[in-house]
């Protein structure tokens, strides 16, 4: 594609070319068309990116940035326009078929625009690559930022827990309870701090029904904790391993949930008696108020084996969009199964709830 510098060649078979000093390849048609070689195009895309994207860049600024002699505004204008057009069509960046879509778009726009005919497949490929690269950059940044936010939130919850629960030790279950006077059991909610939002994975996760409930009820070592109404923490953990994203999350989306992994967020829990592998554990809500709190949270993270089949299928985000108006949905079956076991006070202390 790229023509080495040589004096003008008249090639009867190819399009007549003429090479200028700056390395630009121009055709010698009646209408001199600039040939956008791979290298030139790359410089173009580079310049555009520097300027902040095809929407921000103008032919003038591109020309300045590229600094290629002989390149005129006219050339740049039309090329930029095609470039923009090529970029427009795909709106769904989360689509896996994005690569195909872009290529398709490119080809379509290439076919329709006469000026594009001269472009080679290679150039188009490169443009697609560029575009993808940009999007991947954004994606990567988004992921990092989300992780950072998650980390921060986790520290927030940890500190809040510490404030409320007094000194904590990861290894020991020295959770101090509080009266109903107002301080809630922070433990209940710390787990949410540790929930790191998984970007870019299917939120399948939340409904795929593989969440275990981690509940540590036995607190003999805890003094003054158990007021009658004061129940305990539940911690959600996803069992499925779909998600491998923000690994920093203390609430690790893996089978081997270790309490240590949960960070000091679990300081309020007694780590020693946490059966983690696949056991479903009872939840007890704090009863300071309506008692629906932990119900909700535990429900949120609960496993719904009964619904698993449907859940997995229906939990695709696409499917769920079918739900438009509130459908006559009562609380999920599993909640109902749970509810007999959840009382607002005087919780039973079994560790393994028959959730199975």
């Amino acid at each position: 594609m790229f023509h080495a510098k040589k004096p003008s060649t008249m090639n009867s078979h190819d399009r007549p070319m003429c090479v200028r000093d700056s390395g630009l390849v121009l055709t010698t048609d009646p209408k001199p068309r600039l040939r956008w070689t791979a290298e030139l195009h790359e410089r173009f895309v580079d310049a555009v990116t520097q300027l902040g994207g095809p929407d921000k860049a103008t032919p003038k600024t591109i020309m300045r940035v590229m600094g290629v002699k002989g390149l005129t505004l006219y050339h740049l204008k039309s090329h930029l326009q095609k470039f923009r057009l090529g970029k427009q069509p795909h709106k769904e960046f989360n689509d896996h078929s994005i690569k195909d879509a872009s290529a398709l778009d490119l080809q379509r726009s290439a076919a329709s625009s006469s000026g594009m005919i001269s472009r080679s497949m290679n150039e188009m490929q490169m443009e697609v690559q560029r575009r993808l690269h940009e999007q991947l950059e954004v994606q990567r940044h988004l992921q990092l930022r989300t992780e950072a936010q998650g980390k921060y939130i986790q520290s927030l919850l940890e500190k809040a827990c510490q404030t409320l629960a007094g000194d904590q030790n990861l290894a020991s279950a020295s959770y101090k309870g509080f009266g109903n006077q107002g301080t809630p059991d922070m433990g209940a909610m710390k787990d949410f701090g540790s929930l790191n939002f998984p970007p870019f994975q299917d939120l399948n996760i939340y409904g795929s029904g593989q969440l275990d409930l981690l509940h540590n009820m036995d607190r003999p070592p805890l003094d003054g904790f158990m007021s009658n109404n004061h129940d305990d923490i539940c911690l959600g953990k996803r069992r499925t391993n779909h998600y491998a994203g923000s690994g920093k999350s203390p609430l690790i989306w893996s089978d081997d949930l270790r309490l240590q992994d949960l960070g000091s967020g679990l300081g309020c829990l007694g780590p020693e008696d946490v059966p983690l592998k696949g056991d479903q554990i009872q939840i007890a809500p704090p009863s300071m108020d309506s008692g629906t709190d932990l119900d909700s949270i535990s429900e949120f993270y609960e496993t719904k084996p009964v619904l698993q089949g449907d859940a997995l299928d229906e939990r695709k985000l696409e499917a769920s969009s079918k739900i438009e108006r509130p459908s006559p949905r009562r609380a999920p079956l599993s909640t109902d199964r749970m509810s007999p076991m959840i009382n607002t006070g005087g919780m039973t202390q079994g560790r393994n709830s028959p959730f199975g």
Partner: protein
Amino acid sequence: MTMAIDGAQLELYFSGYSSTTTTATISTENDHDRGGNWNGWSPMVDWEALSGPLDDFQDLIDSMMDDGALMNQSNRLTPDTSNSMSASGTVIVDEETSCGDDLKGLRLVHLLIAAAEALTGLNKNRDLARVILVRLKELVSPNDGTNMERLAAYFTDALQGLLEGTGGIHSNKHHSETNNGPYHHHHRDDPQQRHHQSDVLGAFQLLQDMSPYVKFGHFTANQAILEAVADDRRIHIVDYDIMEGIQWASLMQALVSRKGGRPTPHLRITALSRSGSSRRFIGTVQETGRRLVAFAASIGLPFSFHQCRLDSDETFRPSALKLVRGEALVMNCMLHLPHFSYRAPDSVTSFLSGAKTLNPRLLTMVEEEVGPIGDGGFVGRFMDSLHHYSAFYDSLEAGFPMQGLARGLVERVILGPRISWSLARIYRVRGEEACPWGVWLAAGGFQPVKVSFANHCQAKLLLGVFNDGYRVEEVASNRLVLGWKSRRLLSASIWTSPSDPDL
């Protein structure tokens, strides 16, 4: 709350079936026929005709609810199927409930609007409003039922607050900590304080995980900030309402990983704080500051934190800020993220006006997007608010249909108070034009800053992880709006105020 378990509810829908109905539900009350009323009934009630005592209201309201029973009755099966009720009952119920629910939902909306009308309309009638609200409360519960029903419960609650005059933002000293019921009639500046912290934290985390609202606001603003200060070495952000400082974690991370060989800049954040009750969401502004300092240290970002107090009436004085020459100034204004507390318009005005005088490099504004206001007055805005939060609820449910209790918590701790605030605000300013802050900024001489391709891309990517129903629109060159289906919910806009307007 499936039929199998809740016998009482079972009866609600099957009240027509068995003769042993005992629950005093609406459907049973109206067995003696009001059917004719329903056919001719329209939402516009003839208020003039209502001049009698309470009984008349009762009839009126009953008639509004009547068709629910009618629907159920018309779909009734023969009584001998009642034996296998539990088995096939659920199936029957589903069919019925889908019709019944939609209808019931509609009836609830009508009742709510009627109550709003009664409260503020031309024919103000507080007694009528009271009766309607009583009836509504019988019908709905914030804990169960469909989205519409739960939403109606909160709106009922909010209206009740307005009716009783306890709906004012600053009017309440109540401290009911134990929320035994889902209804909280009282709200203050920080209603979250009334909830236990664990509730608040849990609800917030759930909200974060279940919906993109918070992240959308934060990330869009942050991306704009990053782009605006790309080459600066010193950045100063003045945050109107820092809350827990969560927004800044991701910005800090982005700053330390700037590409292009640019050195890591120094970041300074000044948080405006209200004098008086400093206890926010979780912890104080100082605590937020400490947390941010620790976080910055953990990622190696040069950082300093300052606090600047607002006046007692929450007015912002630019002179109270400490500015440093050569720093890029950014004003950040997050107003209506779901878990944010209410801010008085005057306070916001003072912040924005003050910002103008400082000529910041960038001003980021995130606020709720309200529908076209027109002159619907209170009722119009009430309906708009209903629509708004209905979309909210729907968005949560669509993403997490099975997690009703989790959503219930978010609704109770975060959305419920918001609804009360919104209504109280609408109530207080009825008659006035409320304009979005974006409009105010444009009129105030701020210039729009274009939302970049990357920013828009980021927003779309973010939404892509959630339900398909979310969408982001670029409604103006400097404004992205997050919406659910066809309803716009949250707006993020970017502005600048250059010292030389010719720039």
